[in-house]
């Protein structure tokens, strides 16, 4: 019996890669812009996500720009890559047909001055000058000042309509961002979020590596996700250098990643309690978050895991007494966290504020390309530890926690489930920590290659794509923090809600400002 051959669609021409591996740049097929965009649409139609879409200058021709795409095929644990070369100052925008590229296209416009024609929302992302002098997507004069947050905000007009502007400096100890609400009374018709205030040039500087600062940039891209971003950096370098890690190093990395998740999830559950005035759980979880940070400090001396990871493994290994102390702390903190958080589900005053607030419908979550606990709270089975396992997660699986309702409650409850699963996982690791070395020797990086590292950090998928030149030095370093995918969902969650629900809604996502601004 012969099967009909399927036509050679652009989607089928994409290169296939798995997470944590590298391939020669020449293996990434060069498509026409039409085929490139058709390939993305073909992938999205097959339930792939756009993990990264970015520009890279073509060193052979200053007028040309490469566009690279990394699609994540979650069901088959494969990544699909393609590229196209654009010679003009513009390219047709794919956003009207594929919403999840909306911010990627704005980023390409801002970084390289190429206009995605037909983009419905073409505004700056981080408010900096184009990386290619003389090219500006908005035709701003070279000497004109670029002021953060100064742009054409979407406006609703009408007698009863009023506008509320908040930030960049906020009431709490929180990073800066600007929020512009269009309101009819208390009701929010639209929220627009302007970020970029935290832009420090981290991604730009990473491309000059590898060097002494590279890992420190990775650790501070989003400081609360130090382990997540440092793991992605190390995995990309290791893929390019063909460096193997010991089982002990992989177990310690996974332990640190889950401790980071625990600290942040517990902190978020406490902060959500505070935002609805339930101060008991706020107080308990505020302290318990510190207990989890202190466990990371037992591993390496830093509560945020600074200095723990390095390409080739980890720099610190706990001795027997430290493992024992960690285990005891973990068991105690897990029980106290469960007790503190379960008060929420049994308190009608909390549930009245959590349930049905800030709903993101499942289809919208798919369309926006959401990741992390916020996506899982919309019923999406998306978790890089499961879908694109690397390191220890190839051998040990943590069940994916999902909930269907897409509201503040779902985002809180998914965190609660993940806290329990991560505690269990860390206990298992501590019980069976492999022996041996924790650090493998380094090796030169492959020249003219591309590596992709996906890590399920506590906010969701951290994606680093690294391209090397003919010397094996970085040529382009692309960072996609999970917040980059999810900020649009915060705006959408507020639509039709009340402005007084904003702090609660925003906290239920708890996205990174610096991770977005880079």
């Amino acid at each position: 019996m012969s099967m009909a051959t399927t036509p050679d669609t652009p989607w089928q021409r994409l290169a296939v890669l798995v997470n944590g591996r590298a391939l020669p740049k020449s293996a990434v097929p060069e498509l026409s812009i039409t085929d490139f965009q058709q390939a993305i649409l073909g992938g999205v139609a097959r339930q792939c996500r756009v993990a990264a879409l970015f520009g890279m200058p073509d060193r052979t021709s200053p007028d040309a720009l490469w566009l690279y795409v990394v699609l994540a095929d979650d069901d088959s644990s494969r990544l699909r890559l393609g590229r196209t070369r654009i010679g003009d100052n513009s390219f047709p925008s794919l956003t009207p047909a594929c919403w999840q590229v909306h911010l990627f296209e704005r980023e390409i416009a801002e970084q390289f001055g190429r206009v995605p024609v037909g983009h419905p929302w073409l505004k700056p992302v981080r408010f900096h000058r184009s990386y290619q002098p003389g090219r500006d997507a908005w035709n701003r004069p070279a000497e004109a000042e670029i002021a953060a947050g100064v742009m054409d905000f979407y406006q609703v007009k009408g007698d009863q309509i009023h506008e509320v502007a908040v930030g960049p400096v906020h009431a709490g100890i929180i990073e800066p961002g600007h929020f512009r609400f269009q309101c009819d009374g208390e009701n929010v018709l639209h929220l627009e979020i302007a970020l970029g205030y935290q832009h420090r040039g981290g991604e730009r500087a990473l491309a000059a590596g590898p060097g002494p600062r590279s890992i420190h940039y990775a650790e501070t891209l989003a400081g609360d996700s130090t382990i997540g971003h440092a793991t992605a950096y190390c995995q990309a370098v290791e893929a390019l250098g063909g460096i193997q890690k010991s089982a002990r190093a992989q177990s310690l990395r996974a332990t640190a990643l889950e401790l980071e998740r625990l600290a942040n999830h517990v902190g978020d559950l406490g902060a959500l309690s505070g935002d609805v005035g339930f101060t008991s759980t706020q107080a308990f979880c505020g302290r318990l978050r510190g207990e989890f940070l202190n466990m990371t400090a037992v591993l390496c001396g830093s509560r945020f895991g600074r200095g723990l990871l390095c390409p080739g493994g980890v720099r610190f290994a706990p001795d027997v007494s430290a493992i024992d102390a960690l285990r005891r702390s973990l068991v105690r903190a897990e029980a106290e966290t469960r007790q503190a958080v379960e008060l929420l589900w049994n308190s009608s005053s909390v549930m009245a504020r959590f349930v049905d607030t800030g709903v993101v419908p499942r289809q919208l979550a798919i369309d926006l390309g959401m990741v992390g606990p916020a996506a899982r709270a919309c019923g999406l089975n998306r978790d890089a530890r499961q879908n694109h396992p690397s390191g220890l997660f190839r051998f040990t699986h943590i069940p994916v926690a999902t909930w269907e309702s897409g509201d503040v409650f779902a985002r809180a409850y998914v965190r609660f489930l993940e806290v329990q699963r991560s505690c269990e996982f860390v206990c298992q690791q501590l019980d069976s920590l492999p022996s041996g070395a924790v650090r493998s020797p380094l090796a030169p990086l492959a020249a003219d290659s591309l590596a992709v590292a996906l890590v399920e950090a506590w906010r969701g998928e951290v994606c680093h794509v690294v391209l090397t030149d003919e010397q094996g030095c970085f040529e382009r370093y692309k960072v996609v923090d999970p917040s980059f995918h999810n900020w649009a969902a915060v705006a959408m969650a507020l639509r039709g809600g009340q402005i007084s629900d904003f702090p609660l809604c925003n906290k239920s996502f708890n996205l990174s400002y610096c991770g977005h601004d880079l």
Partner: protein
Amino acid sequence: MFDILAARWKQGARTMGYPDAAPPELPGHFRGRPIFDISRCPSGCDACAKACPTQAIGAEGGKITLDLGRCLFCTDCAEACPQNAVRYSRDYRLAVRQRENMVLRPEQELALAAQLNEKLRSLFGRSLRLRQVSAGGCNACEADVNVLTTIGWDLSRFGIDFVASPRHADGLLITGAVSNNMLAALRKTYDAVPDPKIVIAVGACAISGGPYINHAEVGNGVPAEIPVDLYIPGCPPHPLTILDGLLRLLGRLAER
């Protein structure tokens, strides 16, 4: 209701006894103030200085200096040293009043922060309201400042609180390398704090730019036009280091 009371009873009273009792236990690998044993340094060796990601270490003319304001407390210098001459002490006390006091020779004592002058101390010594501004921070310094407000540390028992508006504040606590995009907002916030006011810079970024030193996108920390009264080094500093600095500034640790 009874569940909440039972939980409250089980969770217990958790506020630490410090500063009257001993400080909380620090982890085994804690990286406090770095110590250089220069007696071990081979002549002409500058391996530590070369390895430092932020050029915090100077080795000119065979003389080692360390700028605590740039130091990330990473392990790069210790790993690069062929003689194991660099190690981290457990000394968490790092806060100083003058930027120049942060550049040290190995044998030099750190001039820990002196208390505010009498006039300011009479105003702020028992009640200090701070507005926090993150200006290009990575959210680690912010998080470990925030942790001081939790019940374990209970910053308000010292009369120190973080307030929602600069108009209600006695000063600013600034984190981050001060991105160009936050400079205007930081200036406006500073101007909005009524005089007399104090400024506290927390973390390597706010003091020197940290890992982002000399990036075109940042201003290497708090700009000169905003005078800083207290510098707290670290990347990020441990909450105990931050609290120690605040209490020293207010003269509440003077004899310790």
